[in-house]
């Protein structure tokens, strides 16, 4: 499930579009869908060499609301870097992901802090995303047994039940996708007692490089209906040449 989330974050962070035509997911004369192949395709079609763009994250809680404008770079799926541009007070604060590790750099105190694995479940930048959401690979097809639950026209609903050995916190996920544009529409997350925990919605589709991309996604926790985190992408460019060593902790202090 988090793979799905990462996919969205990955859209920004993880990369450029893969070249080449996609394999057909459904035979034109059949309603049979390979659920795992579909999700794998959706989640990996944005992999590329590199990407660069801006991201506006608006967090709304019962007590406060705030917007963060960030610049982001990515290389493959394992490396990404974000730097806060606004608000001014937090300008220069960076998050670096390399593999499964996350570092934060805080220019105000000139300190670099690595997030320990025990705290990966904590909120990222106060949003409704966790650090764990950022580092989890797009492995929905590996972590879950996927079956098509429902299909109506181009809309398909896929049910994901964690495989026995999968280290995931969810009891199940429901993944709704648009088959025609090959994009996710909504992903819902349930706990082990089958209670809805959060809903992720993907909107504002934009055609970039021959692929449809949702430019906006929101995370809404079920328990707090007034709360929401919305991420909007802007100025996305793929396969951009990136400076060597950009994704190193040594460079965090020097990030422009």
């Amino acid at each position: 499930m988090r793979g799905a989330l990462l996919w969205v974050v990955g859209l920004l962070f993880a990369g450029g579009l893969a070249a080449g035509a996609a394999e057909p997911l459904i035979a034109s004369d059949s309603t049979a869908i390979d659920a795992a192949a579909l999700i794998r395709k959706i989640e990996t079609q944005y992999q590329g060499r590199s990407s660069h763009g801006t991201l506006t994250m608006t967090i709304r809680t019962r007590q406060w609301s705030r917007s963060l404008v960030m610049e982001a770079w990515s290389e493959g799926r394992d490396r990404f870097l974000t730097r806060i541009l606004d608000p001014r007070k937090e300008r220069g604060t960076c998050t670096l992901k390399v593999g499964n590790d996350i570092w934060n750099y805080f220019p105000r105190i000139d300190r670099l802090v690595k997030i320990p694995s025990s705290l990966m479940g904590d909120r990222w930048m106060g949003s409704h995303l966790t650090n764990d959401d950022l580092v989890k690979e797009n492995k929905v097809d590996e972590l879950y047994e996927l079956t098509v639950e429902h299909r109506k026209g181009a809309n398909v609903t896929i049910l994901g039940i964690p495989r026995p050995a999968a280290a995931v916190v969810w009891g199940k996920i429901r993944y709704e996708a648009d088959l025609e544009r090959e994009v996710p529409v909504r992903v819902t997350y349930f706990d082990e007692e089958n209670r809805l925990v959060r809903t992720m919605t993907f909107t504002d589709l934009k055609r970039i490089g021959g692929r449809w991309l949702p430019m906006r996604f929101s995370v809404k926790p079920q328990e707090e209906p007034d709360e929401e985190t919305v991420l909007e992408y802007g100025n996305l460019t793929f396969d951009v040449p990136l400076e060597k060593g950009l994704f190193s902790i040594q460079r965090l202090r020097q990030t422009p």
Partner: protein
Amino acid sequence: MLLRLAWRNLWRNRRRTQLTMGSMVFATSLLIFTLAMYDGMLWDMIENVTEVMTGHLVIAREGYQDRPELHRTIEGKAVETLASIASEGGVLGVCPRVSAFALLSCGPEGKAKTQSGRLTGVVPEVERRRGRLARCVVRGRFLDSAAGRDVVLGTDLARSLGAEPGSELIVIGQAADGSTVTEVLSVAGIVDTGDQLRDGTLALVGLETMQRMFVLEGRLHTLHVFVDRPLASREIASALSRRFVGCGIEVLPWQELQPQLAQVFSIWLGMQVFTMGVFYFGIVLITFSTMSMAFLERIREFGMLRAIGLKPGQLVLLILFEGGLMSTLAGLLGMMAGALLGWGIGVHPIDLGWFLPAISWGGTTVTPRIRGVLSLVNVAMPGGVMMLLGAVVALVPAWRLFFLRPVKALREG
């Protein structure tokens, strides 16, 4: 005259009286000592909860205790009104505090250890005056000022962060307005509050520093009230609650904050009553058998007394006086001896820490030591019951004197 006669009778067979009284004194003093020990252990547990951190009452925004969220604060006039409680009779002190969870990191970059902790903003001067928190420092020193950049860590937290006095501690969190908190503090000292769970997350900071860091200026999360009668905390809490009806503020006594401990307290009382029951049963048996033996030994004497004209009622009264005098004396001596023993282990508790570790349980700590706490009830009751018991137990053999036939008694004796 009968009383004087009873007194003389007691000392006619000195050894017998001494033996009976000795067992009475021993039982009374042992019971007082045991109850003092029970109370000592119980008060250790209560004080480990109340005196170190919680206080006897906690005043907070409604719901804060269940969900200690940053925004659930007491603010504005309510802060001043509540702080004025400190000057009321029976209140020993009020400690204002602010708490927040944050990421704490210590050590050189790249090798730093990071974990979450609960930062608590306190006013050092107030904490020094009240409670034991400031006295729990095991290394370094306590906080100097409410606005300083010092931090004092719990032992277990310090250990897992690899922090020592003088280390630099990085705090990363989220302020009440959503902004990111980043701060560098200096570790001034390390405290051992006796509760491993608490010491695993405890980080004390000056109140003003904390309010500034988390954008909580002029706001408080909790006020910890210390009173002179901890056992009356429930009553004091409901009296205070009535004053703040409609303000969205709740006053909770330690019994509600630590319901497990309050339950232990109830069980403890039951155990004390049971222990007393067992002791008294033993005393009754000993006294009864001693008195019955004495009664049988003295049957000829009773026959003689009846023969020379003492009425059965007078004879029964004489025996009751004897029993009563003996038990009164034994009760008084037992009370003195028991109180002395209890006071002794109160002043000089027996430390068992060298072979027994402290146990964190039910939100408190069971200190491995034998300590005595005397209370009027626990001294007066065993003594008082002993005094009554002597006369009551004497009543059983004495009752037979009503039916004593002098000739038969003289012949049997």
